[in-house]
């Protein structure tokens, strides 16, 4: 079997006396979705931070595309092809949607230590940014400042930013949080297509979305993975149902 795109091995993280990541191992393949679910406070976001590089695990290692990245800072991991969206939408509010995506394209298209030519007139960057906006259905809003977009639109923009990075792995922390029913439908459709192109590590509370999208699901409780497997197996796992899923999914 080919080496997975991302491999986290036996990660541990403690904050003071609290163990927030306890012996977590998981893999993400080059295509498809590995979803991490779990109740609030299970340590999902902390896990994402460790994989993204903004937190360093106390023990364990992280391999990305065959290379050890455990000690690399976020910007170096990004250069290797790891794109992330944040639980709380993180865009540059004063930039237009187009400029947000163009900044992402700029990150891997040559040096950014260029001082005189106006970046806004670089056709190559704008074209890629536009293509990314098109993929998420945000072309009409290209010239609107990100700060003036609706919440759902900002979530779409965040995906466009990730796509404009031309990443290999998407690290998505609750991409559906706060989206209305229609926006959720659209985003699920988009993610369904994205998973045919990229490896995705998804943290999400919306169980319908998770079961619609995931190829593998890991259940995190108190920092520990209590179950991991195909969606059908997770759905049927009595321990998981008792601990977490409840009647919602059984219905």
């Amino acid at each position, binding site marked *: 079997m080919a080496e997975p795109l991302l491999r986290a091995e036996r990660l541990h993280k403690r904050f003071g006396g609290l163990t927030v990541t306890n012996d977590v191992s998981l893999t993400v393949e080059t295509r498809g979705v590995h979803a991490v679910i779990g109740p609030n406070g299970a340590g999902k976001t902390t896990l994402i931070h460790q994989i993204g590089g903004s937190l360093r695990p106390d023990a364990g290692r992280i391999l990305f595309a065959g290379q050890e990245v455990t000690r690399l800072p976020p910007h170096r991991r990004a250069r290797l092809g790891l794109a992330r969206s944040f639980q709380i939408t993180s865009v540059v509010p004063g930039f237009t949607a187009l400029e947000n995506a163009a900044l992402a394209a700029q990150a891997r298209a040559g*040096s950014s230590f260029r001082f005189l030519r106006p970046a806004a007139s670089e056709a190559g960057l704008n074209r890629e940014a536009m293509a990314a906006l098109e993929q998420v259905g945000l072309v009409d809003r290209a010239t609107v400042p990100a700060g003036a977009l609706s919440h759902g639109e900002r979530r779409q923009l965040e995906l466009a930013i990730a796509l404009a990075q031309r990443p290999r792995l998407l690290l998505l922390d609750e991409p559906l949080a706060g989206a209305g029913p229609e926006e959720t439908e659209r985003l699920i459709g988009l993610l369904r297509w994205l998973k045919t192109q990229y490896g995705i590590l998804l943290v999400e509370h919306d169980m319908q979305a998770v079961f619609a999208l995931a190829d593998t699901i890991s259940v995190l409780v108190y920092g520990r993975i209590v179950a991991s497997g195909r969606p059908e197996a997770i759905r049927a796992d009595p321990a998981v149902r008792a601990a977490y899923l409840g009647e919602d999914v059984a219905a």
Partner: protein
Amino acid sequence: MHFLLREGALPLLLFGLLAAAPFLGFGQGYAMTLLARAMILGMAAIGLSLLVGGAGLVSLGQAAMLGVGAYAVVILDDAGVTDALVVLPVAVGAAMLFALATGAVAVRTSGVHFIMITLAFGQMAFFTASSLAAYGGDDGYTLYARTEVAGRRLLEDRLGFHYVCLGLLAATLLLCRAVLASRFGRVLRAARENPSRVQALGFHPMPYRLTAYVIAGGIGGLAGMLLANATEFVAPSFLAWQRSGDLLFMVILGGLGAPHGALLGALAIVLLEEWLAELTEHWRLIFGPLLILAVLFLRGGLAGLPAQLRAGCSRG
């Protein structure tokens, strides 16, 4: 009147007025000195606005850059070197080196810590200048001639000096605008608004911030070189932290949105100070409240005024 409110009209108007000023009743020695001072401080303020408005770094050390540029003139003058072909690159280069050395430490911090650390470096430079006994120490150093330009005494001439300052001011403004609009400036501005997003994209903000700090330092050095020539006298007071505060105030009063705001702020403060001081010796009692009102009610500073008026017109 409406064309004056158009976007981009303001800097053109400013430069038009400055270019014509010697022929509009500001041709006497005193007025020209005042205008030169305003333009030179405006230049330093434009450099500072690259940091404050562009990078979000509030520096209280810009006067030290001016001081390094000014003392470069003094030290070279003392050594008998008075040609701008040498003095200019040395003044700018020295200020950039000073900015590089101090900035390498300072840009690792942000917010209040950045303010304090730039202030500390500024004070170090101030006390160093005070202790330069060979160059007059606290008493300062008198320049008996202005810097020559390729052997010609261009700067001795009042009009010549005015237009050299104006030309360099325009070049500074155009440079800062270009830098802010470039790829570099885009990363710098994005890192001000959302540093974690910028890192997640693969940029490390620090080298961008340091580079901006060095550019601002070089502009400060240029302004310092000109200021030494304008006053024909250099003293440690050039590096006083109060001057850094003044420059910061010019930037904020003028508006953080665009580099020409800093120029507008510098002109407003230098000229207003002068005008009020003529009216009454208690001018500071008027000056202070005026500045407070301006900061409270002018969103976007003086440079944002046309946009505010535009909005007012279209509403009215």
